[in-house]
C-alpha cells in the first residue's frame, strides 16, 4: 500500500481488544431520553483562524469539525459557467469504538452523500469557474455522524460568506430490529441494532436535499419516519441560526449607519 511507505511503519495487522472482551459488552439501551428526543447539541461557528469558514458541532458524544476553503481557482473543464463543490468527509482513526482504521476509502463515498445534500442549497452560478471545498472531520462517532456533518458543513459554508438559498439541517433516526418504535438521533449502539434513516432538509424552503435509509421498512413506516426526521431538523434549525448570528457578529463589525 503506497500509504505505508509514507507513514511510520507499524505492525502489519492488529485487532481491537473489544473482540476479546470478557464479559462481552452488553449494548446499553437508550438512557434518559424519549424516543423523539434528540441529544443535547453544542454548536460553534467561525472557530478556525485560517479557513474561510469553519464550524464545530457536538451532538451527544458525536463531535464533527468542518472547514471551508473559499472560492478558489478551478480549471473549469469546458465552458462550465457554474462553480463546483468538492466535499471530503473523513473519520479520525480513533473516532470509532471498534478497530483503529485509517480508512481513506469509505470517506470518498461519504463525501459524495454530503455533496448531494449540500449542493441543492448553494447558489453555485454566482461563482463561475471557481471551486468551493468542504473538509469535514469526525473526531468522535457516537452515532448519526453523517447528519451532524451535514449541518456542520452547511454552517461552515454560511460562515465563509458563500451565497446559499438556505442552511441545510441533518437528522437521523433508527428503528429497533423488531420493535416499531422510531428513535430520533440514535447513538452508536442503536444505530447498529436495526434500520436507520438519515435525512437533510432546507428548513425555510421545506425541501429535502438528502435522504438515505437502510434496513427493512414495512408499509408506511417509512413515511412516518420521514416526517419525524423533518421535525427533528426543524427543532435543530434555531440552534444553528443562533450560533451563526453570534459568529457573524463576532467576525464582522456592524456597518455604522452612514448618513447622507
Amino acid at each position, binding site marked *: 500500500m503506497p500509504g505505508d511507505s509514507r507513514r511510520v511503519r507499524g505492525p502489519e495487522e492488529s485487532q481491537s481488544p473489544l473482540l476479546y472482551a470478557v464479559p462481552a459488552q452488553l449494548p446499553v439501551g437508550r438512557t434518559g431520553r424519549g424516543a423523539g428526543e434528540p441529544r443535547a447539541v453544542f454548536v460553534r461557528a467561525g472557530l478556525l483562524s485560517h479557513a474561510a469558514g469553519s464550524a464545530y458541532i457536538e451532538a451527544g458524544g458525536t463531535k464533527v469539525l468542518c472547514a471551508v476553503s473559499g472560492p478558489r481557482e478551478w480549471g473549469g473543464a469546458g465552458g462550465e459557467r457554474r462553480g463546483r463543490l468538492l466535499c471530503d468527509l473523513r473519520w479520525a482513526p480513533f473516532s470509532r469504538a471498534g478497530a483503529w482504521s485509517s480508512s481513506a476509502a469509505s470517506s470518498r463515498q461519504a463525501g459524495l452523500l454530503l455533496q*448531494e445534500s449540500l449542493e441543492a442549497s448553494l447558489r453555485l452560478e454566482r461563482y463561475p469557474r471557481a471551486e468551493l471545498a468542504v473538509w469535514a472531520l469526525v473526531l468522535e462517532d457516537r452515532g448519526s455522524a453523517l447528519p451532524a456533518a451535514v449541518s456542520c458543513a452547511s454552517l461552515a459554508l454560511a460562515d465563509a460568506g458563500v451565497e446559499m438559498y438556505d442552511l441545510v439541517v441533518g437528522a437521523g433516526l433508527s428503528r429497533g430490529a423488531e420493535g416499531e418504535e422510531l428513535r430520533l438521533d440514535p447513538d452508536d449502539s442503536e444505530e447498529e441494532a436495526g434500520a436507520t434513516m438519515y435525512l437533510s432538509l432546507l428548513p425555510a424552503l*421545506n425541501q*429535502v436535499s438528502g435522504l438515505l435509509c*437502510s434496513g*427493512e*421498512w414495512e408499509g408506511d413506516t417509512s413515511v412516518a419516519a420521514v416526517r419525524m426526521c423533518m421535525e427533528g431538523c426543524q427543532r435543530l434549525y434555531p440552534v444553528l441560526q443562533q450560533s451563526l448570528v453570534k459568529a457573524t457578529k463576532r467576525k464582522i463589525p456592524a456597518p455604522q449607519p452612514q448618513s447622507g
Partner: protein
Amino acid sequence: MASVVLSEAEKVYILHGVQDDLRTDGRGCEDYRGIEVETDVVSNTTGSARVKIGHTDVLVGVKAEMGTPKLEHPKEGYLEFFVDCSANATPEFEGRGGEELGTEIANMLYKIFDNKSSMDRESLCILPGEHCWVLYVDVLLLECGGNLFDTISIAVKSALFNTRIPKVRVLEDDEGSKEIELSDDPYDCMRLNVEHVPCIVTLSRIGHRHVVDATLQEEACSLASLLISVTSKGTLTCMRKIGKGSLDPESIFEMIETGKRVAKFLHLSLQNVLSQEESLGKKRHKIGFLR
C-alpha cells in the same frame, strides 16, 4: 451516470411532454421500456444473466466459492459485489472514470442486501465458524442507456435465481478432523430462494411529476431522483435520493407509493419470465450473443 448534454429547448420539450403524461418514446410516466432477460449465458459461472432495458445492457456472473465466514456472523455465508463500468459503455469510463460510479453502485447493492429478509444467508453456511459459501457477484456494464440501477438489480436477481450451488456433505472421520465432500452428480445442486430479493426502482423527478425508467435524455433534465429498493412483499429495504436538486416531502411520499406499486408488478412479471425460461429447460433456443 453517463450523461448527454441537452440544450435548454430540448429540456423544456421533455418537461412539457412529461407534464401531460406523454414521453418522447410514447410511454406513460410509469411504464418500463421493453425488458429482455436471459439466464445461463456464461458457461463457467455458477449462475449468470443478461438484462437489456432499452439501450442499457448489463451482464451479471455469480461465482460461488468456499470461504471462511466473517467474525461477526460465524453462522452465515455472504455476498461480495463488484461493478465494472467498462470503457465500451461510454468513453467517459475510460481509465479510472468508471471506478467512482462502479463503487457507488456496489455500495448501493451492499445496502439493499444488508438485511435479514432479502437473502437467506444461513443456507450458505456449511460449517459454522469454519466454512461457508461466498457468492462473488460481478456486474459488467456493456452499454449505458439510462436507468442503470434498475437494470443491474434485475440482472442480479435473475443471476441469483439461475445459480446452482453443488450440494456438500461434511464427513466426520475418526480423529475429528472434518472433511468436505462434493457431490459428483452435476444436477444434484442447491437453488437459492430469490423470492424476497429486492429490485431497485428509480423515480426521476422532471418538472412537477416523476417518471420511472428514465432514458439518458430524461435523466439529463431531471435534477433529483429517488432510488427505492422494494421486495416482492412490498417491504422497502433501501431508499436514497441522488442528484443535485432537492425534493419536497409530498412528492417523496407520492414517489414511494408509485415505486411500491411498480415494483410489485415488476417482481410478478420477472418471476414468471424466469420460471417460464426454467421450465423450457434444455430445448429453449438461445438468443444471447455469447453463444
